[in-house]
């Protein structure tokens, strides 16, 4: 049997869980696919790799916003085939507002004159700005926004360098169990932009689809299968997460289940949520023109005819 080689670039975060499951369950091998798997630390590096053709697909967890910014720069590069995030109604956590224990910051509205850290980069800066604005404050005057690398977030709050951070999982959960810091708001983004909210996406490059449609289709199927597995029994698959991410075995209990949507699962609600997210980029003037996310979603016709 001949193995097909496929290159992936992924982020070691919770939203990538389906990919871990696929690897652990040997789903790729079963489909005669050999994955050249590259762990990245920056979503931008993933997008770079995809744009330059160094990678064929971004497993779940690739930055959903950045992918669209890149898509606006290099139209027709990606197709989205999955979304990951969290939601209030479904009670799955994606993000949180982290503050010191005993802080008087209870919501974004309390941030006036304070400093808030966020994941570095345009995506989270825009989201944070939007949340601040939505809370009735001026992000340019009332609040100081600071790019703060993920590892620096808890120490910065603890040490008092910032008053709060808008942090992604698993930082929020770790914070919830760490002395001295606490999670003031759960899923603030979903509260403001859309519920559920998706900050992660799974993407394929159009180049890959065009050159090897059969393989691309298999990838989508595998991720779908793995997504279903992970969502069905997260407790079972939790234990493999330390192998791929920074989470330690001892922290497993803290882990919040992410909300993972496979290609098959995506419905109008999901698309609307994603569209709202992208619209924030437009309203915050990061994207100069409106963008319709529906045109960026994978459709079966992309695999050619059938």
């Amino acid at each position, binding site marked *: 049997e001949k193995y097909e080689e496929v290159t992936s670039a992924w982020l070691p975060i919770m939203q990538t869980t389906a990919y871990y499951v696929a690897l652990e369950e040997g789903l790729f091998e079963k489909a005669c696919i050999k994955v050249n798997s590259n762990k990245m630390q920056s979503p931008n590096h993933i997008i770079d790799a995809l744009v330059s053709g160094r990678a064929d697909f971004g497993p779940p967890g690739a930055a959903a916003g950045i992918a669209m*910014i890149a898509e606006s720069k290099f139209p027709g590069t990606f197709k989205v085939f999955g979304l990951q995030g969290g939601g209030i109604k479904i009670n799955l956590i994606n993000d949180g507002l982290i503050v010191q224990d005993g802080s008087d910051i209870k919501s974004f509205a309390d941030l006036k004159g304070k*400093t808030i850290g966020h994941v570095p980069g345009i995506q989270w800066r825009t989201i944070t700005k939007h949340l601040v604005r939505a809370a009735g404050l001026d992000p340019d005057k009332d609040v100081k926004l*600071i*790019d*703060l690398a993920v590892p620096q977030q808890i120490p910065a709050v603890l040490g008092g360098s*910032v008053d709060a951070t808008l942090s992604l999982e698993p930082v929020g959960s770790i914070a919830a169990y760490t002395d001295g810091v606490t999670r003031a708001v759960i899923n603030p983004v979903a509260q403001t932009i859309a519920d559920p909210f998706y900050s992660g996406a799974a993407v394929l490059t159009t180049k890959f689809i065009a050159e090897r449609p059969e393989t691309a289709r298999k990838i989508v199927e595998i991720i779908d299968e793995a997504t279903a597995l992970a969502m069905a029994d997260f407790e079972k698959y939790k234990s493999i997460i330390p192998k791929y991410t920074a989470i330690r075995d001892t922290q497993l209990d803290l882990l919040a289940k992410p909300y993972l949507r496979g290609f098959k699962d995506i419905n109008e609600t999901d698309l609307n949520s994603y569209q709202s997210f992208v619209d924030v980029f437009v309203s915050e003037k990061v994207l100069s023109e409106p963008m319709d996310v529906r045109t960026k979603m994978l459709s079966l016709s992309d695999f050619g005819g059938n």
Partner: protein
Amino acid sequence: MRNFLPHLKGQPSSASNGSSETISSLISAWFGRQNWFVYATGPLILLFVWWIAYFFTLVDKSLLPSPFATLFDTGVNIATGDVMNDFWFTFVRVFYSFAIAAIIGVPLGIVLGASDRVYRSVEFIIDFFRSTPATAMFPLFLLLFGLGDFSKIAVAAFAALLVVVFNVAYGVMNARQTRILAAKSMGASRMQIFVDVIFFETLPQTFIGLRTAVSMALVVIIVAEMFIGATDGLGHRIIDAQISYNLTDMYGSILVTGAMGYGLNVCFLVLEKYVIHWSGK
């Protein structure tokens, strides 16, 4: 054969003619002595390689902008004062961190280097931190100095300091002893030997250290601006541009950073030619 290593046997630098020259005349003399072409070569090679890579699509075009588009964009950004603002913030931070490193590092290097035992005993610390990336030390510096400018300056100063101390101490340890003995025979005190002899004896190596350090300070400041919260500076500009796929801005900002680095080095080069007229003699 006749032209072999011409600079090694050329006339001594004009600096030996007197110290009354102004710095500006020095700079022009320095550049004038060799034609401008020499100094243009480096940037031209860089642009040329870039252009080749771009033109023949050796690298994906969507990720490597045209050098000319980049230069044009950067020019516009400079003209609007946009880049200059970030340039200035970065420059000030680099200046402070370098100044701290130099002012502490040179005397410290001389004193440590003067005794083998003393240097060996602190060598672990110096080599240890030289080999530890500033990025890994960010949490500690954040803790100690907070998120503000000062913690960026502190981490860059620390990195640059190690470089200065290492080079100066090495210079002292490799110094020839004849001149030290000469000063000693004239009754110079320990302190006087440090200031009047070892300092000068080490100066060529010190300059290497300072040049390495100024580039190091710039690198660390940029990295800090990229990764520890900053709202201005070239590092912040680079990461913003990187993240929003504003490629000409990103490469343009990198160009400006590199140019600042080169400029700082040229300052030292000019100063060095003026001060260390005796090197290789």
